[in-house]
């Protein structure tokens, strides 16, 4: 979108977007607003520069001069060097499904692709794909989901448990903007959260924390992500963990 395109079809103007650049730089906007702003600044160097300036100011606000805790660097190094562990009982549990929850006849395309195989080497690195997990007003997000569904260049997955119960639909547009329609998921206890994972080669990498009761969640996933999985984890999620074997998973097609 160029600066001369001063209005979206729903009345959202470039002035609206400009006014939000400060809040955007502080991560203080809703997911749908974030999406629009990112589209805007991608083609608007002036706006991109303004965001960068705001972020630099925020950098200075953040400066506390504290020291990182002892031992943290050692843990990072250990993670870098750590060989992929074998799946074990300490990994995430299979996600339960409510009785009577709707079933769909179509199963995820897991026939030729085995997540269990892909997950035999369970992740070492959690953050490589993490960009932004957002939640917000579901109505505009549903409209965005519909648009992605209708786009022939988009990718989609249906996340299915081993017993065939379908839980969640995921769609990802051609730019890697993903939407997870999580409102069919049962609400978890307060000390639990759903966690979203992406499968890249033999690695399963955290995309983000969804909370105990997600509705529509936006995220970003690069083209290398071949499949998506959801697990249940302790509150706050886990940095390097995951057991897609048994969790709800789906191949992106």
């Amino acid at each position, binding site marked *: 979108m160029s600066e001369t395109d001063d209005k979206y079809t729903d009345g959202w103007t470039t002035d609206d977007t400009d006014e939000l650049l400060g809040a955007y730089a502080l991560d*203080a906007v809703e997911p749908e607003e974030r999406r629009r702003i990112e589209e805007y600044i991608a083609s608007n160097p002036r706006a991109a520069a303004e965001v960068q300036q705001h972020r*630099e100011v925020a950098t*200075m606000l953040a400066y506390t001069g504290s020291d990182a805790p002892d031992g943290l660097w050692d843990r990072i190094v250990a993670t870098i060097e750590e060989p992929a562990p074998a799946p074990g009982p300490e990994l995430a549990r299979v996600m339960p499904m409510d009785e009577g929850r709707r079933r769909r006849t179509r199963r995820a395309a897991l026939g030729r692709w085995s997540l269990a195989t892909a997950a035999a080497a369970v992740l070492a690195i959690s953050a490589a794909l993490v960009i932004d997990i957002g939640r917000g007003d579901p109505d505009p997000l549903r409209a965005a989901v519909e648009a992605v569904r209708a786009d022939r260049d988009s990718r989609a997955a249906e996340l299915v448990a081993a017993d065939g119960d379908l839980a969640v639909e995921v769609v990802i547009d051609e730019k890697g903007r993903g939407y997870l329609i999580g409102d069919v998921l049962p609400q978890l206890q307060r000390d639990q959260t759903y966690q979203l994972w992406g499968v890249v080669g033999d690695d399963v990498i955290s995309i983000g924390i969804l909370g105990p009761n997600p509705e529509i969640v936006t995220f970003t996933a690069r083209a290398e992500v071949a499949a998506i999985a959801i697990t249940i984890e302790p509150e706050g999620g886990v940095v390097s963990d995951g057991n897609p074997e048994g969790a709800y998973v789906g191949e992106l097609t």
Partner: protein
Amino acid sequence: MRRDLSDASDAALVVAIGRYRQDALAEAYRRHAGAVFGLAKRLLRDQARAEEVVQEVFLRLWNDPNRFDPDRGTLRSYLLAHCHGRSVDLIRSDTSRRSREEREAKATAEEGYDVAHEVLDLAVAGHVRDALDGLPDGERRAIELAYFGGRTYREVAEQLGEAEGTVKSRIRAGLRRLRSELVDVGITAGGAT
């Protein structure tokens, strides 16, 4: 023989990280991990989770150094931006399970956002504190609640009883004013490194 990285620029460090030089990551960690941890802990108020976020931030730098573009800002701002986004994500994950009434508890929500009490006695921090204190009250509170409280501008507006448009304008204007004030006293983004 490998060159000592202690004098290398941040951009050179990232190039070296891209070549799998762990000593370059160690140097980046030495320079910036304290600030990243400080921000994460301030936002999350939880040592263990703050440490997890720091770990994520530096692991992403290790795994995907190309995301950092030195033409678009400093390494510190890049790392802090990731740290802030991830911390806010965790905060919102927490708050999503709470009632809105809890989130609207104005009396307590405004406590603990006094930058002056948490920023250490450093030259840069002192200037930042002065500049922040010099902002109009509405701008300062909006920025503090959004940045250090992990709130959206809409939540800030609700909390302060202001119009959403007012709050987003105040955040933007306040950031611009802060930048101008800091530039005037010779502080640039790189000055906090």
